[in-house]
């Protein structure tokens, strides 16, 4: 037997969300180099001329490949008994937790998420190692999911450790 991937993909807008979220880091790196180039530390000039194109190429590759790759990997599924998620791109991780062991169900919307009308759902258990995160759900889907999980977990008793 083998494990199949979870059934549902996240929303397509998540591709843009991941792109926009990763861009600032590259922009800062690039800007620092351009400033250094403009200030013109003479003896380093040839060095910057080399690194700026390399940075641009790496950034472009990362921003094009990573979101598409993530969209293919990120998946989720919720049954009455279990929550199952798959995330990552270069390194990937699948997480399964029984609904009976769920401690909290959180949603969060940062500025980037708001921009694309997306919501992240985080399901935590009593273990610090096991939060299950579903990135980039459509806002309405996320609310439905949270409602369902809250209803399912309320049926359980005990402190779930």
């Amino acid at each position: 037997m083998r494990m199949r991937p979870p059934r549902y993909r996240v929303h397509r807008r998540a591709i843009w969300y991941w792109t926009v979220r990763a861009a600032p880091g590259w922009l800062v790196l690039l800007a620092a180099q351009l400033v250094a180039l403009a200030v013109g530390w003479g003896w380093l000039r040839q060095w910057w001329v080399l690194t700026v194109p390399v940075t641009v190429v790496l950034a472009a590759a990362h921003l094009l490949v990573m979101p598409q790759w993530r969209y293919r990997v990120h998946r989720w599924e919720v049954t009455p008994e279990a929550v199952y998620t798959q995330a990552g791109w270069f390194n990937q991780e699948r997480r399964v937790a029984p609904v009976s062991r769920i401690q909290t169900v959180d949603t969060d919307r940062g500025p980037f998420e708001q921009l694309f009308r997306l919501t992240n759902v985080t399901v935590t258990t009593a273990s610090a190692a096991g939060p299950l995160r579903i990135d980039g759900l459509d806002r309405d889907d996320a609310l439905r999911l949270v409602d369902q999980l809250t209803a399912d977990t309320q049926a359980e008793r005990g402190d779930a450790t």
Partner: protein
Amino acid sequence: MTADGQAAPRADDVPEWRRLSTRMLLVHPVQALLQFLPALIGLLIAGTTSGTGPLYGLLGAAAAVAIGVLRWLTTSYRISPEQVQVRRGVLSRRVVSVPRDRIRTVDVSAPALHRVLGLARVTVGTGLSDRSTNDGLRLDALSAPAAAELRDELLHRRPGRASGTTGEPAPAAGTELARLSPRWIGYGPFTLSGLVTVGVVAAFLSRLVNEFHVDPTRYGATRELADRVLHTSVPLLVGEVVVGLVVLAAIASTAGYVLAFWGFRLTRTPGGTLHVTRGLITTRAITLEERRLRGVEVSEPLLLRAVHGARCIAIATGLRVGRGAERGGSLLLPSAPRAEVRRVAVAVLRRAEPIEVPLTRHGRAARRRRYTRALVPCALLVVAAAVLWVVVGLPGWVPVASLALLVGAVLVAADRYRSLGHALVDGTLVTGRGSLVRRRCALPTDGIIGWNLHRSFFQRRAGLVTLTATTAGGEQAYRVQDVPAGTATALADAALPGLLTPFLVPADDGK
């Protein structure tokens, strides 16, 4: 009041607030003085030059004593059938309440001064205080019998009784699982805990020399030493220093072992708790509820393994792990013969197979991965050394010497593969890994609350998975590293039957 004749909580629902032991009125001033000692010395030195030293010193000491008395006056606690409350604070009053069913451990310790006065400090452990230094539920201190009684009351859910109390912290009745044998002290030098002590002392001495401009060459004994140091060849000197450090570390480790673990006893009480007492000068008694126990870890650091020693650690919710584990409550047996450690682990776990069973190996792909992961970084270092030798003119022996890294890497990789394995026996998941510290963790499956299956890019190519069992206790995550994907699925499915069933498909189903 809990001084000597402890008042029995009345039968009605709201128990009265209880005070700490009146003898703390003696301890607090002394402790406060000790805390203020550096400041006092500073005051004294600074003051002496201006002529008002004694006055400042006195003021500082008086303030310290006043704070101690205030602390005693403002701290009180009470125990109702539902919760434990501690009320404290001089300027901002604070009441900490903890539901009694969230109490996981009770730790009774007595430093030297407390022991002289027959006092003991009670620290109540909840899951929340795992990693913070929050001392909200520390009662410093009660009289020793009152502390022992409080512990029983909290953990066994019995109402407190004003029974005739003995003078000693009551040694809990129950079956003894282990007791320190003086021969185990021989394992002390191999724990390496003394290295830190030696480092601290060395740093302290060098600062002393610097600050007070002590010139070591001015005194007979040290001058002789300095002369010898200055006139010996470098390799010999390095050798001497290393030998000296090793000897010092060994002595310090042994002393540390004796101080911490003298009189070590592990008992199981009929009330369903494990009870550890230990310590030469500062005595500690740690009580852990067995229903909070999620498993047992047998760990063998490399040095200890070389002399067939090991340690046993509890995997429990609400206990400190990692570096603090020695001082925290999770140690079930200090460095001791491996056979003894296994016996204790079996006794605590109440099942033998998880500790004894040979582990299932993870196969050739996992073995190859051990070698690549150990060799690649070392090979990069060797290449870097060679490049530096060519470009910058690093001495020629550096790249040659760095080849030794490769030999070390091969040895570590081989040993890491030998440790790697897993088993599922008797309703218990067993994981084994590590070389510098080899660990075998046994987790009864009812304590597992989820699975993480991690596959890095290279693991996917090799068809391997790192299966992580998450739990609420200990390190929170226990890994079965680099196991073939099919085995991982089968293992996870067998350990928690039904959880994965909706997500399983036959292996030959495309993709």
